[in-house]
């Protein structure tokens, strides 16, 4: 993508008087030398695949390690029984985030957004939003472009992989992307969109990548929930007119600096954090013995 900062996107939106998502799509069209139909169609395929992945969730599946599976179903039961304090909307977002994270761990087909570990965040908020607000597919795909544009700037300026930047780079980026997309769906201005993203990323700054036994399971699946819910609260703040006191691009740069400063034991090596707890090590040992 030709944009190296969120500010450049915001400036282009203002200068060209075009919607945020269209600026991103036109950039994709010129970069990949494809038509509008092709670019929009490719994004539609991503959204459709997310929906199919959500619908084909199988609550009986367990991951190879046995650590993950069935939580999405359990959450759904609790929401249906009216037991959740966070209400139906957030409850359904939680259900979908868990489901997608679990489907990923169980080798089902998902859309990496931006990575496989963080694949539950965007579909959880977008699919739930569409169900609750009844908006058309086209609008949702526009929001996907907004999210993808934000993610690409983060990838250019910092990173999106746990191995390079910790989980703030993975779940943090997914959350920022989803927040921007939600702000767009709620009628936010270009400024509100990037501030929603900035607040989401800020709130997950420093998040370490510490998968137990090196597998994309614990804590990954449940972190998709926090990423999704954090996206909603960040978008709500932005729509309320609250701004990130640190400009969005500087937040991304801070995320990069923190990621570099993180010791490698906290960057997907499975050597620190939760992986290094007595129980984490016990799981690891058991996994190794089974091999």
């Amino acid at each position, binding site marked *: 993508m030709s944009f190296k900062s969120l500010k450049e996107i915001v400036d282009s939106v203002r200068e060209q008087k075009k919607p945020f998502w269209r600026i991103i799509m036109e950039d994709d069209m010129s970069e990949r030398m494809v038509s509008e139909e092709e670019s929009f169609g490719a994004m539609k395929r991503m959204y459709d695949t997310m929906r199919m992945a959500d619908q084909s969730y199988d609550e009986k599946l367990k*991951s*190879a390690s046995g650590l993950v599976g069935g939580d999405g179903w359990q959450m759904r039961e609790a929401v249906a029984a009216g037991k959740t304090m966070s209400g139906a909307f957030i409850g359904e977002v939680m259900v979908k985030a868990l489901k997608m994270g679990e489907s990923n761990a169980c*080798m089902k*087909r*998902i859309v990496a957004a931006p990575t*496989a570990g963080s694949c539950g965040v965007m579909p959880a908020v977008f699919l739930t939003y569409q169900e609750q607000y009844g908006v058309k597919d086209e609008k949702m795909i526009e929001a996907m472009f907004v999210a*993808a544009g934000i993610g690409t700037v983060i*990838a250019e300026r910092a990173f999106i992989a746990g191995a390079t930047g910790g989980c703030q780079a993975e779940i943090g980026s997914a959350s920022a992307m989803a927040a921007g997309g939600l702000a767009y769906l709620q009628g936010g201005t270009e400024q509100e969109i990037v501030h929603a993203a900035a607040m989401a990323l800020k709130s997950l700054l420093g998040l370490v990548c510490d998968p137990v036994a090196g597998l994309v*399971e614990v804590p990954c699946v449940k972190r998709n929930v926090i990423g999704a819910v954090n996206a909603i609260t960040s978008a709500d703040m932005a729509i309320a007119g609250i701004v990130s006191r640190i400009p969005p691009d500087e937040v991304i740069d801070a995320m990069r600096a923190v990621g570099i400063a993180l010791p490698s034991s906290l960057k997907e090596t499975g050597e620190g954090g939760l992986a290094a707890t007595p129980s984490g090590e016990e799981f690891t040992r058991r996994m190794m013995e089974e091999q």
Partner: protein
Amino acid sequence: MNLFDIVGPVMVGPSSSHTAGAVRIGYIAKLLLNENVKKAEIYLHGSFRATGKGHGTDRALIAGLLGMHPEDERIPDSFQVAKEQGMQFSFEGIELRDAHPNSVLMKLTGVNGRELEIEAASIGGGRIRISKLDGLEANFCGDYPTLIVHNLDQPGHVAEVTSMLAHKSVNIATMQLYRDRRGGDAVMIIECDKEVPPESVEWLEKLEGVRKVTYLSLIEKQ
């Protein structure tokens, strides 16, 4: 980075480097062998060895060798598919020298007896790099039609190959040359902007001093 590196790829979980990348390594290896795989001896290195089982790396590699793509839903059942198709395989751990943490060495035999030894790494986001072919240094990603010529280290071979490509109007994107010692075994790896015609590949195979030609065509065959 393009937009669909960020939203996408569509893939079977759980990990783009351990699963999607592994499928792609197997897939490119099958294309390089240029025939169906009869037997595969697979050696896992580093994190592929340590967490490969939990990530389904083993099933992913076999899926790729069977010709599946990273989004194929049959990946978890690839061992079963391999059995049905009569493909034999084995896994072992290995300590490879100077290798990326997500690396694998595979010794392949095809149904028509062709053999190929390939070392490759999954370098993140589902992208891969082939680092050795038949024991000789290599460095390519499998995104382009790639011509690999093993020859004796003698004057003239590079010129023969490049002029053949020029004659066929095939533009060279990148080109690398390696040899084990002066006058010994040499290899050229040429990534091209378009496909090299099959008759040109055959012509190269018959040239004196050329020991083996491996061609990665991105046109799918059944």
